[in-house]
């Protein structure tokens, strides 16, 4: 297994009660696996802030595995459900940003499943190998900017609030007692995440240098009209401003 072209570096978050114990059982049982994976122990998979995942990619890792207790077995009752919602949204964002969403995987390993732990780790390593190196700490500036945009999106209040409230909004309803249908919630979350991502991406591009609508459109591959509408939003919120006019074309910059 170690003779392939490259060895991905992988981080796994293991919840204390199930997955970490499962990884220990793999050790006690002497099940062998490749040494690519290093683990961080958290008390619950629900502790894993999506921001950590992107931090890992930005730091140069190729894949992130989040392992928790099986659904229904969470030591903290519902922590793994929240983990599931968060990671699902994070994968969606990675996809929007053109980063293979399967670089992130959420799965379940119980305290007795040493073998399953090894199987998941091994299949994930192979998956990441098939996708290839990410190297976000390398030369690819656009990749880094997109990851930064993803990270910034994951830090926005609106996105965090929506994801954190998903279970409540679907099951208990909002303050007015209105329950959202799963479809409606999906589309609301999708559009919010997309909008926030594009805005953050533009803001990050403008942080580097002042750019015109056309230049931004070129850098992002998006329609200039769409860029303009996001710029209006960004201007109104005070995040960007017109830096200068060049040949009567406004150039924007971060405030």
């Amino acid at each position: 297994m170690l003779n392939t072209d490259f060895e991905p570096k992988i981080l796994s978050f293991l919840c204390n009660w199930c997955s970490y114990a499962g990884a220990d059982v793999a050790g006690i049982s002497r099940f062998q696996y490749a040494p690519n994976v290093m683990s961080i122990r958290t008390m619950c998979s629900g502790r894993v802030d999506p921001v950590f995942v992107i931090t890992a990619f930005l730091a140069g890792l190729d894949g992130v595995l989040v392992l928790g207790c099986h659904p229904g077995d969470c030591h903290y009752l519902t922590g793994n459900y929240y983990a599931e919602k968060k990671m699902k949204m994070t994968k969606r964002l990675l996809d929007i940003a053109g980063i293979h969403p399967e670089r992130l995987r959420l799965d379940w390993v119980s305290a007795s499943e040493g073998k399953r732990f090894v199987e998941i780790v091994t299949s994930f390593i192979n998956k990441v190998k098939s996708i290839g190196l990410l190297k976000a700490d390398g030369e690819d500036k656009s990749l880094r900017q997109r990851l930064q945009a993803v990270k910034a999106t994951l830090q926005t209040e609106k996105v965090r609030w929506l994801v954190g409230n998903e279970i409540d909004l679907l099951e208990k309803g909002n303050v007015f007692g209105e329950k959202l249908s799963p479809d409606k919630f999906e589309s609301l979350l999708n559009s919010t995440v997309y909008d926030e991502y594009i805005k953050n991406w533009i803001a990050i591009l403008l942080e580097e240098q002042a750019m015109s609508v056309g230049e931004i459109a070129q850098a992002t591959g998006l329609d200039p009209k769409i860029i303009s509408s996001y710029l209006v939003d960004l201007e109104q919120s005070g995040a960007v401003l017109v830096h200068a006019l060049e040949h009567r074309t406004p150039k924007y910059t971060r405030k």
Partner: protein
Amino acid sequence: MTISSAHQAANQKTGAVLVVGGGIGGIQAALDLAESGYYVYLVEQSPAIGGVMAQLDKTFPTNDCSICILSPKLVECGRNLNVEIITYADILDVNGKPGNFKVRVNKRAKYVNESLCTGCGICQTKCPWETDSEFDQGLGKRKAIYIPYAQAIPNVPVIDKELCAYFQKGKCRACEKFCSVKAVDFTQTDQIIELQVGSIILCPGFNKFEASLVPQYGYGKYPNVITSIEFERILSASGPYQGELLRPSDRQRTQKIAWIQCVGSRGESPQNSYCSSVCCTYAIKEAIVAKEHSPIPLDTAIFFMDMRTFGKGFEAYYERAKNEHGVRFIRCRPSVIEEVPETKNLRIKYETEDGKLIKEEFDLVVLSIGLEPPKDVQSLAAKLGIELNSCGFCQTDVFSPVAASAPGKFACGAFSGPKDIPETISQASAAAASASAFLSSARNSLVKSKIYPRERDVGGAPPRIGIFVCHCGVNIGGVVNVSEVRDYAATLPNVVYAEDNLYTCSQDAQEMIKEKIKEHNLNRVVVASCSPHTHEPLFQETIRQAGLNKYLFEMANIRDQCSWVHKEYPEEATEKAKGLVRMAVAKARLFQPLKELSIGVVDKALVIGGGVAGMTAALELADQGFRTFLVERSDKLGGNLRDIYWTLDGKDVQQFLKETIDRVHRHKLIDVYLNAEIKDITGYIGNFRTTAASQEGEKTLEHGVIIVATGGQEYKPKEYLYGEHPKVITQRELEQKLATHALGDKELNNVVMIQCVGSRNEERPYCSRVCCSQAIKNALKIKGVNPSSNIYVLYRDVRTYGFKEEFFTQARSQGIIFIQFDDNNKPEVTSKNGKLSVAVLEPILREKVVIDCDLVALSAGIVPNKNDELSKLLKTPVNEDGFFMEAHVKLRPVDSSNQGIFLCGVAHSPQMIDESISQAMAAAGRASIPLSKVYVTAEGIVSSVDAEKCIGCGLCESICAFKAIVLKQVDGVNKAETIPALCTGCGVCAASCPQQARTMGHFTDDELIAQINALAVT
């Protein structure tokens, strides 16, 4: 006041207990008692505590490293203020009366001053005189001055007078010369000390059967015939061959090993008649572990009569050994072993199941030797005034399994019959509970309390990290280059001290860590060794004793998640170990001290389930003085016992049940709720609130602990015409009919019993443990009423473990016929014109025989009650078979993983009445530990909020599953606030806060991000 004057006054009992025997049973009993408010004298004959468990390489069925899980207990015992360890000592005599015994103990001279010795071991390296090591079973050597094993507690050597040149010839004294602290003292003499105790717990363990008494196997004559315990030492990384799988004659790698079961057990004199209970499973373990250890393909074969894997998880272990590891199982007891003189190989002649006679050669044969009473048991029993049973073990009763025959004296572990580690631990906790109940008026009268040095203020000071990298014998060091990791660790920022240790968990290492903290003014400590699950508390305690907050500690798991799983890649494993250390250091650098909260304890208990386990637990707790709520779902107490009339040894169960129910109803401290269901459980150890609903409505109970005793039931067969033919009944139904004389002689002329109905199959892979004994019990009963009846028991393996074997022998001598079948050739039950007959493949004749019969009794297995809902309410998981899971299979058999919740009886696993009773007593004993304290301490890992950033959106309040966050008005605006006592430390709030205003103690954003970044560095 002195001990004697305080307690002889006013006829008061003495709040101290003598524990005889320092094996795992004695250690557990001592720790339980010390934690429940009693002073303990732990007296051990050999120079160190640890017993046989210290000699084992691994433990079944999890293959946990034995010394790894034992060592923290040894250390805990060694440093518990209320456990006084007296080793190298013998009981002389016992006087006085229950509650106030006077015990004289002879403490043999060690010729080493225990208070001066540092355990450095230089004396044993300098001593020139060698002999066979008892600990290594004669396969290795020890010196005349020696510490029996690496992790020994106390870590003090003794001088073997018979071997020592100074004692024998008057010269040498090398040890004295090299001892820098002048601890060697040749003038020491034996000392007689007198102890005052209220109660005595006996756990002197067992003696190994002397294999040379079975001359046909050639033990002692052929070098490559060894005992199972010798093989444990060979497997052990710290053993005579450093864990290399070599055979004694030529120290060559072994390629083919045979195990012979029942050596000294299930035989005729000089062998013992009883079954030693543990050998089948330990042989499986040794075979699996040997296969894993061996660098070359290893062939393993186990010769057995019946495979007795009856314990929790054992059957699956057996299946794995067969199917995954390829261990061969041969049902045959070889009559003789011959040595091939040229090769020293061993030849075993046996008959295969298809009748072929085969001669097979092995290069090593392991004799699975049985367990016997301790050698000096007769004199010990005489001194203590207790009775022994016909096999020489301590006499106990099925309904009071840990009481010796004299009041105030209790027995546990193999002393009362062969048993494995978890059962020994259960019994030890049960014995401790009994002693505790017996002495409850004297609780807390003699204990000393723990005083920690004042916590050093490290706030603001730059981190000074000390790092200790463990070799764990060869467990880590055999793969990972430990010195390279240590040198690397020393280069990391803020690391001011780094060293490596053979065993960082040993007691001397704890002392060393404390010294290094002082010497280098360390304010953060990192240990790179095994799993925090097993060892974090030990190291946290150590740094606490050195004045550091226990949360200034981090572990890097370079064994379970590194050296053990990357054996083939030593270089990569070393790199990974460095990475794990780098991450641990990056996190530790940011640690801040955390406060632990003291929580008041409601000193009441909830017991769920009113069967024998539940009632026993309730009585035990109430006898200790704690109010107990006993909640039963049905309309009466008794559970499964209502349908059992006799025990295998003929005791009247119904009489016992009636007395027990009466006692429960009469007990002032027990409140019984019948027809009651648990609706809701909130809270945590010390402060649970439970809603129980019954016909009288809902009631809220407040209590500090919970004991789960929800039991199980007999499986309702779907096979063998059950429910279709009226004469196909279960064993339980048969017992009921026998008890009520509902069957005439004619209906009992020809009876067929079929074993393993609903057990050991795909749907329920586990063994139900009780059915073999139950079948034999009923068969003997039928023979009692109708001696001319023909009874056939169709079985897969007869699992009459322990003293139950006697009844198996009795059954055969009374003409009951046992026919073995295997899973692929199950018997067939047919009915022709209402006449029943059973067809089965007879293994000796290798022919199908048809038995016409009047009655078919199905030995239906045990299924757990549906525990899903309760499991959720209790936040305590059930295993694949539906039984509740214990916190640790070996060492915490009655604790659940959730603090303050304990398990017992069939809710835990199928078991016999006496086993259920001792588990229930154990659970009550464990539960009484927090109840006997005014406060329990909650973890310091709780969430917190930055009030500046918090906008009071309430997300955290709504997602917290433990209602540990509330919104409060502060200056007219909402702010979130954590209730630390309710916070369980999951950190979901921290990962979800829209403002990123929340964080989690010990797992802060900064700490986790530092770990991530440290990982990425290459």
